[in-house]
């Protein structure tokens, strides 16, 4: 047998079936991961609501309509003028719910980005270098994790003064503990893979190994966690606003709308229902997307 003969060119591991039209692939993927797409749909709608709020809102969210309240000062229920009813100041709830999406998305996304940057940085460095670096960074993470986010954020916002940016900053700066832990765990696992050692054997620098080799390989869990994190942070913001130390009126936030609704829910329950419903749907959207991404990124669920 000829010495230089090698394997026959393999049929690629999964021989490309005759190119399926994109739409068919898309629908198949929708069928396989319905949660993912439902989540994505919700988030797209959410983004649309936030961006288009000025266009699609029937009213200005801060305008107080005198016909929004009854003679004895009770908010009026859903009607043609106020599709979801009016709130305790006679403002249109629908418009406020739409504008509320802006706040929720802004806080959820930006605070998550801060979580992400801090968590990935701390987790990667700790996991990669190990030893005393790991020890110090993880003890710091333990300290951060020891303070329940909501309570600590409450204290921090109280110190900084309640405003959109402070809320977002507080959640961002205090909420990275879990991310750091997860990233560290992933880095520890990936670090042991031989391809990382191979990279070292090639003479690559630590920075190159960390950010060019390890990071792309842990991006899956990071994306999943971040997506879920957006939902969680939206909830924390709502919680803070509900407690009155979050987004300040008259800026509508679902949390402060629920707080206001709590004052009137016995006589005007819709003031409580709709902002809460919006909040649930938004958080659900991110949870669905995060779960879906987890499924799709799980090698056990992929077709290869």
């Amino acid at each position, binding site marked *: *047998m000829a*010495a230089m*003969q*090698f*394997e*026959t060119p*393999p*049929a690629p*591991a*999964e*021989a490309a079936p005759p190119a399926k039209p994109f739409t068919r692939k898309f629908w198949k993927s929708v069928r396989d991961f319905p949660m993912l797409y439902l989540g994505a749909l919700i988030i797209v709608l959410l983004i649309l609501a936030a961006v288009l709020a000025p266009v699609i809102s029937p009213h200005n969210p801060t305008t107080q309509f005198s016909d929004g309240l009854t003679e004895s000062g009770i908010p009026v229920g859903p009607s043609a003028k106020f599709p979801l009813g009016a709130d305790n100041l006679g403002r249109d709830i629908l418009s406020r719910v739409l504008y509320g999406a802006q706040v929720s998305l802004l806080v959820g996304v930006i605070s998550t980005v801060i979580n992400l940057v801090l968590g990935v940085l701390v987790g990667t460095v700790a996991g990669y270098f190990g030893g005393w670096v790991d020890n110090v960074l993880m003890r710091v993470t333990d300290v951060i994790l020891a303070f329940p986010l909501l309570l600590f954020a409450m204290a921090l916002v109280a110190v900084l003064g309640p405003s959109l940016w402070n809320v977002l900053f507080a959640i961002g700066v205090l909420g990275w503990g879990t991310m750091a832990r997860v990233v560290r765990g992933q880095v520890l696992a990936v670090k042991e893979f031989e391809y990382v050692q191979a990279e070292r054997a090639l003479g690559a620098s630590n920075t190159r190994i960390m950010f060019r080799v390890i990071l792309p390989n842990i991006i899956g869990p990071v994306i999943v966690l971040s997506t879920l994190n957006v939902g969680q942070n939206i909830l924390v913001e709502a919680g803070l606003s509900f407690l009155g130390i979050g987004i300040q009126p008259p800026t509508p936030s679902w949390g402060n709308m629920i707080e206001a609704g709590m004052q009137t829910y016995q006589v005007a329950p819709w003031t409580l229902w709709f902002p809460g419903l919006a909040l649930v749907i938004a958080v659900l959207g991110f949870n669905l997307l995060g779960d879906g991404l987890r499924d799709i990124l799980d090698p056990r669920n992929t*077709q290869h």
Partner: protein
Amino acid sequence: MGNILEVENLNIQFRLDEKYYTAVQDVSFSIREGETLGLVGESGCGKSVTSLSIMRLLQPPTQISGQIRYQGKNLLDLPEKQMRSIRGNEISMIFQEPMTSLNPVHRIGTQISESLILHKDLSGKQARQETIRLLQSVGIPRPEQIVDEFPHQLSGGMRQRVMIAIAMACKPQLLIADEPTTALDVTIQAQILDLMRKVARENRTSILLITHDLGVVAEMCDRVAVMYAGRIVEEGPVRQIFRNPQHPYTQGLLASLPKVDGPRTRLQPIEGNVPSLKNMPQGCRFAPRCRRAMDVCRQRDADFHLVEDAHRVRCWLHAE
């Protein structure tokens, strides 16, 4: 000397990506009382799947057809409850990974006596004594202490001995050993193979030995069946297969092995790769890698042809 197990036309299909793929096709073999049958082949050839199907331990979504007759009963038709009374009692199994095959949170003794409690209706005290005896019989030192220890406190070799003790607890008729020594060092492998021979002889247990290591087959088995891509391609007594392999695959396998003695010559590999489940070639599955493949090989698979007494081969070269 009757057949203790007869597998006939076994077909196993897996569902992947909403389609069924045939992992095991038309597999038939039998094991006689007290005999050791080797099922040999490369990874992915379906040998482990075959063994699990005998125990009915394959997880859905799978489709199994054919017959697996144990002492005349078709195991595939048995109600689950009856099947359970066979598992671990009349047919038992040991696996490749001794490090993960034991439950980390239960004590060694508990895990061994579980079989006894399930099948032999022993009291706790009796089971414990029997467990200690079993540990002794598989060559574990200090059995009275080991019985109360946890798996992680034992070495790989010791754990495989524990697995053998579990498998042999109820003195089964048939022991299925799925790559029992692959994860072990050579010197430990020698110990375990030795032990398996010993306990099988003592209990008159038949063995179905699944392995990829032709050396192990040569040492342990009476007969051997060679599998390739889900089918048995050659079957016969060990000596005949090694002395006079008939299927090009068996021949290639033997030729590609480096030797521990004799002159060092260039190895003769089988070209190409083992086909994947999703891309099974038409006709004889070995044809794309076979140097002697003919047109017919690429169209239809061959049937078995008897070469010698009890030596069968599935190859067109023997069609006449």
